[in-house]
């Protein structure tokens, strides 16, 4: 016969308690008067490396903007194969910055 709802609830609670007690045994108790661990050189280096990587990604915004702008301003005349217009646009674009 299937256990009652109450019995199943009691069993689930008991299982949770068992798991909690097992976890407590695995965790070392905190030591009195211990100072917090200081970040070692490897952590500082990792943070420095991460900062450099983030900065590199940020710089991509400018590159993407530049390339998009260049393509957008010059692509249409290039597609029309209007060489004279393209040459003039290129001259204006180059003089523009």
């Amino acid at each position, binding site marked *: 016969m299937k256990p009652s709802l109450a019995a199943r609830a009691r069993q689930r609670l008991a299982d949770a308690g068992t798991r909690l007690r097992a976890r407590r045994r695995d965790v070392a108790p905190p030591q009195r008067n211990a100072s917090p661990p200081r970040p070692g050189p490897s952590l500082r280096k990792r943070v420095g490396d991460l900062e450099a990587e983030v900065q590199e990604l*940020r710089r*991509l915004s400018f590159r993407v903007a530049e390339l998009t702008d260049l393509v957008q301003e010059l692509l249409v005349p290039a597609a029309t194969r209007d060489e004279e217009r393209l040459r003039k646009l290129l001259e204006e674009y*180059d003089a523009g910055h």
Partner: protein
Amino acid sequence: MGELGTGFRVDDDGFSFQAEDGLVLDVLFDDRRVWSLASDDFPPDGSGTRSVSWPLPIRKRLEGAATVELREHATGATFAVTEASFGKGDGRVLLVDSAGRPLAVTKWGRLNRPFSTLDRDVVDAYLDQVEQVLSVLRDECGVPAFLAFGSLLGAVREGKLIGHDVDVDLGYFSRHEHPADVIREGFRIERVLRSRGYEPVRENGGFLAIFLPQPDGTRRNLDIFTAFCCDGMLYQVHDVTTPGSEADVLPLRTIHFEGRRIPVPSRPEVFLEAAYGPSWRVPNPAFQFNPRRLDRRRIHGWFGGLRERRDFWSRHYAAEGRRIPETPSPFARWVAEREPAGRLFDVGCGNGRDTRFFVAHGYDVTPLDLLPRASRRVLGRLPAHTRPQVQPFNLQSLRQALATGGRASFERRPVTVYGRFLLHALSDYSRENFWRFTSMALSGGGRCYLEFRTDRDATLPKAFGRHFRRFLSPEAVAAEARAAGGRVVHTEAGRSMSPFENEDPHLCRMIVEWKP
């Protein structure tokens, strides 16, 4: 040297005084303000004395006598005063421009003419120009534009320009949220301004400077800083990074400013507190922007990079221009022996010494440089009808490298790319762009001639001292040239190629060829 009981002592190197923290002092020569400082920036020694060195622009002009006064900015009261004599000069110390107009040191450490020294009609003419730029931004660029930074501060506090300020700052709000889109919109705005006759200079992805001609023959700049929102933060290049939203900017409102009504953000205090701190209401001519490292890196990462070393080269040519040789370099003569007169791009032409040589020998030269004005004197000696126009060329700009390379590719004939003492002065990224430009320019065939400091030059004496240089091995440069599609046809390295004053650098001369 002067001395007064307050411990105020003045000499050619600087001055010292005793004062508590938190004092903002104006420095006056003969009753005219030349600089301002904050006592906090000069910690006292054991005897309570603070020592201050003259800023370089003042130090260079210290000849003669002056009544030197420290005046409390907040109250106008004299804090200390003394008579002082400097150098060996007669007369009074003159901190004026070539037309005799008074100058003062700005917060950026340069001499300029603050608004307080200008006639009213000159200020009004400048403000008319400012309003014209505001209307172009609003009506033709379609962006809400407003007063920013120092101008916003003066407008909100007192309804007028801050007397010791030297320019007006404007901002505009971009509705884009990604920096790439904000920057791209800025490129469009720059083109619109240029089409209306302005000459904007792009300082970075979110900062444009416009130099406006003034009735007295000078030019005064107007700076435009981009603002935008992203992920709950309000940003304005360079010094506003704060929690905020579009509602802090829009709708714009107008306030009284120098007798006019000028647009400002909906909540200007948000911008002012972010830029100047909680005490923004207290005037402080010695204020220095000091953003958090985190915020500075973020803004620079998104928008910065175009000005790498430009300020150094500008100072270098101003200070050392007369020392830099103006006769043709040995390398120019070496190239002329190997390359018949034809179309030539002098990349990084510097003071123009080699451009002048090539023009005189019949080459059709396009000189390119980060600072076109550096070659004004040397190229000015060429007859007007042969004098080429130096094209601004910033290799930190990918757009410029590609556009200039694209224009050069229209030559459709062999050309020469000449780069003397260029490669080692470039960042790695600029050097990549140099190769991009060169491969495009030589798409019709031709040769690239390079002379650069090698890795063996790193520890050798330098006539102009230590500054940024990337010492490159010839092998590494050859590999880059090949990766760009060129073929190295000549390499030689050693000394005695270009001795100058106390240095005989270890150089490499390289010829790289491109076939059409």
